[in-house]
C-alpha cells in the first residue's frame, strides 16, 4: 500500500499534472468567488479539456476544481454577506459581522488558513479511512441518517437560546417551505399552488440569497455608509487572523474531524455539517455573547469543516457512486465522463487513481488557500468603499446567482419573496439561520424518517447508532440550559446585581408591528398549508402537518410567554425597507420585460448616477463593466439570462 501511496504522490508532482491542476484550481476559485455558479459551471469550463485526456491528469484537474470551491466562496460570504454555496452558509453569520466591524481581512485570512488546514486534515483522515470505510458507511441505515438530520435541527436550539420559541417557529416555517414539491413517500405534489416553478421546491441558493443577502443590502443602504463601519488597518487584520487560527487550533482540529467524518455519510453531509460545527463552536465556547456579532470562532469552525467535508464526501462518491455533497456530484459526473465507474473497484483495481485523487485534493487545498490568502488583503478593501457604489453591483450579482439556480423567472420572484421574509425576520429579530436550517434539513428529515420506519418498523429507533446520536441531541438541548443555570447560581453567589438586572431586562419579550405581521402571516400560511394538503394521502401529508404543528406550538408558546410576562413594545419602523423592496421588485419586473443584460446595465448606471452620485465617467465605466461581465460569463460558461425585448434585439 505504501508503494502505491508514494507512486501516486510522484504522479501528482509531475509537471503536466501540476499545470492542469493549477488550471482546475484557478477555475474553481473563479466559480467559487462568483456567487451562484458553483461546481456545475466550473465543470462546463473544464469539459472541453476533459475528453481524451490522460486519466490521472484529468483527475488532478477535476480535483483542483472541486477542492477549492468551498475555499473561494468564502469571499462572498465574508465580504458581501452572500452565502456562496450551501457549504458556507454558517460562515456568513460571523464572517460578515466581522467585515462590518472592519475586520474583513482578519476574517478572510483565518477562514482561508482554517480551510487549508481543515482540508489537509480531511485528506489525511481520508487516506487511511477510505480502505476501511465501506462497512462504516453501510452501518449508517436510514434511521441513523434521520437522527443526524435531527441533530442538525437541534442546532436551532443552540443558535436561538435567547428567543427559543421564535427560533423554533422560524425553523418550522423552514420545514414547511422545504416540504414544497414532491412528497418523497408517495410522489404526490404539494403546496405548489399549481405553479410549475414550485414543483421542484424552491432552490437552496435562492433561499440562501433571499434570507441573508437581500436584507443585508437593504440594511446597509438604509445606513448609508460602507460595509465596514469601523476604520480598519488591513495589514494588521491579516496577521491577527493567522494568530486567531493558531489560538483556536483545538476547535479547528475538532471541526475538521467532524467535517470529514460526517462527510462520509452519503446523502447528507454538505447540508448539515457547517451548522453542526457552528453549533459546536457556540456550545464549546465560554463566552457566547459575540456569536452572530463577529466572533472569529464562528468563521473558523465552518470553514475548517467544509473543506474537510469535501474530502470526506469522496468516500461515498468513490466507493458507492453516491455523491455526498453538491460538488461531489460534479466530481462524480467528471468520473463518468472519463469513463471511470465508481464502486468497490476504486479500491481493488484503481487504488493508485484513488490516491492520486486524495493527494491532488490535499495539494489543491494548499494552492487554493495560498492564492486566496494573497487576494484577501486587497479584496478586503472593498469593505471600505461607500456601499451605495457597491449596492447595484451586488444586486446584479445576486440576481445573476439566483437565476442560475433553475434559469426561470420564478427564481427571481422567489428571491424577492424570500428576501421580504428575510427583511421582516431581520428587523424583528427572528432567527434567520433557524429558518434556513429547517429548510435545508426538511427533505432529509422527512425522507429518512419515512424510510427508517418503513424498512425497520419500530426497531428502527432501538439501534445503538440511534441512541448515540440521540444522546448528542439531548446534550445540545440540555447543555445550554445547565450552563445557564450554573452561571446564574455563580452570579447570585457573587451577588453581581447589575449583571442580573441587565440579563432579565434583555430577556423580556419584545413585541412590535413586524412581530404582529409575522404572527398573522404564519397563521395564514398554516391555514393555507392545512387546506392545500387536505386531500392528500396520510403519508404525503404527515410532514407538512408536523411542520404546521411546530409553528403553531412554538408561536402559541411565544404568545403565552408574552401574556405571562410583561411585554415591552418596540417600535419597528419599516418604511424605508418597504421602499427598497418595492424597488427590488420593480427591478425584477424590468429584467423580465426588457432582459437581464440591458436592465442590469441601465439599473447600475442610473443607481450610480442618481443615488450614489458618483462621477459620470466612473458610473459609465462601472455599468459597462457589469455588461461586459455578464456577456463574458454567458460566452465562457454557456449561461443564459432572462431575455426580453431589449436583450433579444441587442444581443441576439
Amino acid at each position: 500500500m505504501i508503494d502505491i501511496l508514494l507512486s501516486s504522490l510522484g504522479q501528482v508532482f509531475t509537471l503536466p499534472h501540476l499545470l492542469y491542476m493549477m488550471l482546475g484550481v484557478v477555475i474553481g476559485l473563479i466559480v467559487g468567488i462568483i456567487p451562484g455558479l458553483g461546481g456545475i459551471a466550473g465543470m462546463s469550463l473544464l469539459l472541453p479539456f476533459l475528453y481524451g485526456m490522460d486519466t490521472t491528469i484529468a483527475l488532478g484537474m477535476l480535483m483542483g476544481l472541486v477542492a477549492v470551491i468551498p475555499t473561494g466562496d468564502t469571499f462572498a460570504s465574508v465580504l458581501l454577506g452572500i452565502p456562496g454555496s450551501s457549504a458556507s452558509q454558517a460562515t456568513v453569520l460571523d464572517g460578515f459581522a466581522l467585515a462590518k466591524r472592519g475586520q474583513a481581512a482578519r476574517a478572510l485570512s483565518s477562514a482561508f488558513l482554517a480551510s487549508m488546514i481543515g482540508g489537509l486534515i480531511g485528506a489525511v483522515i481520508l487516506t487511511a479511512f477510505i480502505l476501511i470505510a465501506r462497512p462504516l458507511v453501510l452501518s449508517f441505515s436510514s434511521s441513523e441518517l434521520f437522527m443526524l438530520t435531527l441533530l442538525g435541527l437541534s442546532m436551532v436550539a443552540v443558535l436561538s437560546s435567547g428567543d427559543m420559541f421564535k427560533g423554533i417557529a422560524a425553523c418550522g416555517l423552514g420545514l414547511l417551505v422545504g416540504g414544497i414539491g414532491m412528497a418523497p413517500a408517495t410522489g404526490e405534489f404539494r403546496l405548489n399552488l399549481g405553479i410549475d416553478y414550485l414543483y421542484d421546491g424552491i432552490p437552496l441558493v435562492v433561499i440562501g440569497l433571499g434570507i441573508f443577502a437581500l436584507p443585508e443590502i437593504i440594511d446597509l443602504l438604509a445606513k448609508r455608509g460602507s460595509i465596514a463601519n469601523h476604520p480598519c488597518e488591513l495589514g494588521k487584520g491579516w496577521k491577527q487572523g493567522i494568530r486567531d487560527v493558531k489560538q483556536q487550533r483545538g476547535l479547528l482540529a475538532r471541526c475538521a474531524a467532524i467535517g470529514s467524518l460526517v462527510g462520509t455519510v452519503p446523502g447528507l453531509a454538505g447540508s448539515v455539517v457547517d451548522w453542526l460545527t457552528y453549533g459546536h463552536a457556540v456550545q464549546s465556547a465560554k463566552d457566547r455573547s459575540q456569536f452572530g456579532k463577529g466572533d472569529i470562532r464562528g468563521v473558523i469552525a465552518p470553514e475548517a469543516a467544509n473543506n474537510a467535508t469535501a474530502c470526506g464526501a469522496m468516500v461515498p462518491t468513490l466507493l458507492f457512486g453516491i455523491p455526498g455533497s453538491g460538488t461531489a456530484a460534479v466530481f462524480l459526473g467528471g468520473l463518468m465522463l472519463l469513463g471511470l465507474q465508481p464502486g468497490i473497484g476504486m479500491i481493488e483495481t484503481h487504488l493508485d487513481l484513488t490516491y492520486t485523487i486524495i493527494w491532488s485534493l490535499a495539494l489543491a487545498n494548499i494552492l487554493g488557500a495560498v492564492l486566496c490568502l494573497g487576494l484577501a488583503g486587497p479584496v478586503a478593501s472593498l469593505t471600505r468603499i461607500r456601499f451605495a457604489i457597491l449596492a447595484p453591483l451586488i444586486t446584479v450579482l445576486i440576481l445573476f446567482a439566483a437565476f442560475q439556480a433553475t434559469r426561470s423567472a420564478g427564481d427571481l420572484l422567489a428571491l424577492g419573496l424570500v428576501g421580504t421574509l428575510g427583511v421582516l425576520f431581520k428587523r424583528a429579530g427572528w432567527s434567520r439561520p433557524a429558518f434556513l436550517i429547517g429548510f435545508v434539513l426538511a427533505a432529509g428529515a422527512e425522507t429518512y424518517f419515512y424510510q427508517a420506519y418503513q424498512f425497520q418498523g419500530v426497531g428502527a429507533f432501538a439501534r445503538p447508532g440511534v441512541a448515540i446520536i440521540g444522546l448528542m441531541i439531548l446534550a445540545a438541548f440540555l447543555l445550554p440550559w445547565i450552563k445557564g443555570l450554573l452561571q446564574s447560581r455563580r452570579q447570585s453567589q457573587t451577588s453581581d446585581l447589575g449583571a442580573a438586572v441587565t440579563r432579565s431586562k434583555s430577556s423580556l419579550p419584545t413585541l412590535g408591528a413586524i412581530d404582529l405581521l409575522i404572527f398573522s402571516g404564519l397563521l395564514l400560511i398554516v391555514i393555507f398549508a392545512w387546506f392545500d394538503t387536505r386531500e392528500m394521502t396520510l403519508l404525503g401529508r404527515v410532514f407538512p402537518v408536523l411542520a404546521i404543528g411546530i409553528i403553531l406550538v412554538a408561536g402559541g408558546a411565544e404568545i403565552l410567554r408574552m401574556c405571562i410576562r410583561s411585554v415591552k413594545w418596540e417600535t419597528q419602523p419599516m418604511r424605508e425597507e418597504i421602499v427598497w423592496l418595492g424597488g427590488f421588485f420593480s427591478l425584477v419586473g424590468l429584467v423580465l420585460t426588457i432582459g437581464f443584460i440591458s436592465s442590469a446595465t441601465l439599473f447600475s448606471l442610473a443607481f450610480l448616477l442618481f443615488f450614489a452620485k458618483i462621477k459620470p465617467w466612473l458610473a459609465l465605466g462601472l455599468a459597462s463593466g457589469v455588461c461586459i461581465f455578464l456577456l463574458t460569463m454567458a460566452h465562457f460558461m454557456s449561461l443564459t439570462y432572462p431575455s426580453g425585448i431589449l436583450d433579444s434585439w441587442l444581443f441576439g
Partner: protein
Amino acid sequence: MTHDHPKNCVLPKRFFAFGLIASALMLNGLVGSAQADETTLPGNITFTVPFGVGGGTDVWARFFVPWFSEHLPGEPTIMIDNVPGGGSINGANLFATRARSDGSAILATSASTQFPAMLDDSRVRYDYADWTPILASPTGGVVYVSGGMGENQESALETLLETPVQFAAQTPTGLEMPVLIALDLLGTEVTPVFGMRSRGEGRLAFERGEAEIDFQTTSAYLNSVVPMVEAGQAIPLFSLGMLNEDGELVRDPAFPDLPTFNEVYERVHGEAPTGPGYDAFRQFFASGYALQKLIMLPNDTPTEIIEAYRNAASEFISNPRFTDESDAQLGPYEPVIGNVVERHLANVMTLEDATRDWLAEWLDRQYGVSL
C-alpha cells in the same frame, strides 16, 4: 477497467475540443459563415439536454456529439445546452416552444421525459408526435434478490413468491414503475419504500440489508452488482429483456444466460403474460428501457436535413471504432436508428384506454396515486 479506452483517438477529439472553445470565444456567425453545403445544415447546432452536467443522459449526449459533428455535412459545431429541472420536463417544454426547425436544434430525452408524457402529466407541454427520432439507445435491467433468499435462482424465486420483501425505489411513476408492475404480475409481495434519490441510493439500501430485492440498469448492474453476485451476496432473478427489430421481447444480449420477465412469468403461471397489466409493463418497458434515451428533431424540419442526421447516424454506427467506444462507454447495446426507432416509438407513446384504466386503478390501489 474502462479508463484507458479513448487513447487511440486522442488527437481528433482534443482538436475538436479546442475547436469548441475557439468557437465559443468568437461571436455567433464567424465560424458558421464559412460553410454552405447543398443540404444547408446550420454551422452551429444547439443540443438541448434537459438534465444537469455529468448526469447519465448528459454523459450519453456528450458521447454522441463528436460523432454527429464528424459525420454531418459541413462538420457543424454542436454545443450542449443543459436545461435541468422538473425531472427533464422543463427542458423538453422549452425545446417544444422554442426550437427552430432548420436542423439547428436537437433534443436529448430519457425515460423521465417519456413517462410523464405517457401519463398525461399536467406540466407536460410537449408532444412526442411533434418530434422525429434520429437515434435511440437501449438499456436493459436486472432484478436481483439478497443472497440469503436461496441457494440458486429457482429457490430464491420460490422464497420471493412466499415472503413479503421490501424494495428501495424512487417514485411510484418513475423509472421503476415497469419493474413494480412486473413484480406484481408475478404475484410477489414486494413493498416499495419510496424517496430514494437515485437507483444508486436504492442499491445502497440493498447493500445495507434494508431492502431484500433490488433492480439496476445494465451498466450499474455490471459494475456494482456483479461483484456482489460473485461474492454470493446477491442472486439475479430475471432481466427485463430487450426488444428485437420486430418489436418482440427477447433475451437481453447483455445477459443471455438470464431468463426474461416473460419466461419467469410463464414458469410461475404456466402461460405467457397477456392483458392490460402486461401491456402497461411492455409499453413502459419499451419507452423507459428499450428506447430509453432518444435524440429528437422537430417534425417540421426539412426532410433532407432529417435524412442528413439519419445518414450520419447510420454511418458512424457501422464504424468499428464507434462500436468499441460505445461498448466501453454506453454498454453492450447498439443504438436503434432510422425507421425502426420511429416505428417502435409510435407504438409505445400512446396508451390504449384499457391499459390506461388498468394502470390508473393499479396505481391507486397499490400506492394511492391518482393519475
